[in-house]
C-alpha cells in the first residue's frame, strides 16, 4: 500500500511537470502564431493601403489630365454645338 502510494506521488509529480512543460510549449507556439497573424494582418493592411493609393492615383483627374496632355487630346475640348447650334440641329 505504502509502495503504491509512494509511486503514485512520483507519477503525479512527473505528470504535473510534463503537463506544465506541454502547456508552456503550447503557450509559446500560440504566442508565435498570434505574433505571426498580427504581423500578417498589418502587412496585408499596409499592402491594401498602398494598392488603394495606386488605384486612386491612376483614377484621378490629375493623372487623366497629364495623360491627355501627353497624348495631345486637349486641342478641341469644347463641343461645337454650344457655339454653333446648327451642328446639333443639322441631322
Amino acid at each position, binding site marked *: 500500500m505504502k509502495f503504491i502510494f509512494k509511486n503514485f506521488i512520483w507519477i503525479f509529480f512527473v505528470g504535473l511537470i510534463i503537463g506544465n512543460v506541454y502547456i508552456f510549449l*503550447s*503557450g*509559446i507556439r*500560440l*504566442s*508565435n502564431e*498570434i*505574433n505571426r497573424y498580427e504581423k500578417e494582418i*498589418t502587412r496585408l*493592411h*499596409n499592402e491594401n*493601403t*498602398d494598392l*488603394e*493609393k495606386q488605384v*486612386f*492615383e491612376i*483614377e*484621378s*483627374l*490629375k493623372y487623366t*489630365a497629364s495623360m491627355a496632355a501627353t497624348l495631345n487630346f486637349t486641342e478641341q475640348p*469644347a*463641343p461645337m454645338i*454650344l*457655339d*454653333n*447650334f446648327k451642328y*446639333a440641329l443639322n441631322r
Partner: protein
Amino acid sequence: MRSTVRLSKIRFFYLIFLGAFFLIIFKLFYIQVIYPYSTNSDYLKTRKIPAERGKIYDRNDQPLAVNQTTYLLYAEPKKITEKDKLIRKVAEFAKTDEASIEAKLDTESYWISLKNGLTKDVKDKLAGLNLKGIGFDEEYRRYYPESSLSSQLLGFVGKNSGGDNIGYFGVEGYYDKDLSGLPGLLKSERDLSDRPIFFGTQDRIEPENGRDFILTIDKSVQQIIKNRLQAGLERYQATQGCVIVADPMTLQILGMSCLPDFDPDKYYLFNENYFKNSSITDLYEPGSIFKPLVVAAGIEAKAIKPDEIYNEEGPVTIGEYTIKTWNNKYEGKISMTRILEKSSNVGMVYIGEKLGDKKLYQYINNYGFGQLTGLDLQGEVAGYLRAKNQWYPIDYATATFGQGIAVTPIQMVRAFATLINGGKLLVPHTVLRIDAEGREQTIQTKLARTILSERTSLIIKKMLASTVENGEVSWAKPKGYAVGGKTGTAQIPIAGHYDPSKTIASFIGFAPVNNPKFVALVIIREPKASQWGSETAAPIFFEIAKDLIVYYNIAPGE
C-alpha cells in the same frame, strides 16, 4: 547521532531556502520599487492603437482624401551601440541633416521621435541596416489624390501641440471629431522577442475608425470651375478669384474653388493666407448682383410691378450725395425689367423708395446677410449688418445697388438661390452622406424660411433671363439655352473712400431658366484687363455654364 545529522541537514536546507527567499524578496523590491521602468517596459506593453481617419469622397464616390501608411522613426538612446554610424545613415536615408539628428539624441531619454512621414522604401532601407537602438511605428498620413483640386474646401490634416493629427480648415476641420474616430488600446505582456505571453495580461480595446464622408461636391464640376477660373485670372490679370456652383433647389454645393490655393499634401510649404476659403471668409461689397434681390423684394411686397414704368431722367440726389448710372446715360421711361437689364442705380433707388426703408432692411435681414449660413465648413464668417438705427438715408439708397453692405460669396449664393427655387432660403451644405461602418446617414436639405412666393420667383427668373439676353454687353452664351444672371462691379473701399482703379468683378447666374440645374457665382478681384464684371467675370461664367450644360447633359430649350 543519526538524529543530529538529520537535524543539521534540515537546518542546512532551511538556510538555503531562507537565503533563496531573501534573494527573491530583494529582487522583487528591486524590480517593483527601485527600478520599475525597465521591467515594465520589457514585459507589459500598453500601446495606443490609432484609429484610421475617415475617408472623404465626392458625390460619385470618387476619393478626395484618403489615408496612406507612413512610418515614424524613433530611437532608444540607451540601446544605441554605434551612435556615429546611426546618425550618418539616418541623415542619409531620411533626407535630414546630421546635426539635427545628433541634437535630438539625448542619451538620458528612453524614447525619442526622430522623423515622421517616412515611406515604406526608406523604412525598409533603414531597417535593413540592423542598427541597434532605432525602431519604427506605423502611422496614417492623409493623401489627397487630386492634390489642390479642392484644397480650400477640404482643408488639411496637420499636428496639434501634442503631436496628434488634427484637421484644419474646410471639411477636415469642421468634421474633425467624426473623421478622427476613437483610438483603441492594447495592453499586452510580451517577451523579449515581442511575442505575446499567452498566460499574461492580454487586453485589447478595438479602435473605432473615423466616419467616411460623401460630399455633395462633384469632382468633375470642381475641375471645370478651377480650370476656367485659372484661365480667367490669367486672361484678366486678376489677383484672386472664387467660383461657387450649387444646386439651387437643395443648396448642395457642387463645386467651390478659390485661387490662389495650396497643395494639402505639402501644406507646410504655404503661407497661412492660402488656407482660408475666401468663399466663406471674405467680406466684400456685392455691387449690382445685389439688385435682383431688391427687385424681388419689391415685387413680393407689391411695391412695384414688373411692367411698371420708371422715368429715368438723370442723377438722383440723396442729401449731399448724387447717385448716377454706371455710364451716366439715362433712357427716360423704362420698365422694372429694363432697370435690371441696364443695371440702373437710379432705377434701383426708385425701387428702394417704393419698398420703403423698413421693408428694405427687413428683406436684407431675411435673405440672411449678417448671419452665418450654416455651411458645414470651418472658418465661415457671418459678416455684419449694421443695426437699423445706424442706417442713414444714403445707406438705404446705396444698399439697393449693393454698396455699403458687406457680404460673403456664400451668403450671396444662398440669397440668390431663393430667387430661383420658389423663394426658399435653404441651409447650404457640402456633405451628402456619412458612412459609419455600414450605417449610412443621409443629410437632408434644411429650410431656414420662405422669403418669396412661387409667383415672384417666376417673375424674377424671367427678368434675369431678359437681363442676360438684352444686357449692355453681348456675351458668348450657349445657344439654344435660356440663362439668367446679373453682373456686378464693386469698387474696393480703402481708408474710407473707394479706389476707382480697383474693383471686384462678379457675375451670378443660373441655367436653364425654367428648371434651374445650377446657380454659379464668379468673383474676381482687381482685374487689370477690364474693371467691369460684364467683361471679366461674365465670360468666365458662360464658359463654365457651357461646360456644365454638356456635363449634365441638359437638352436645348429646357
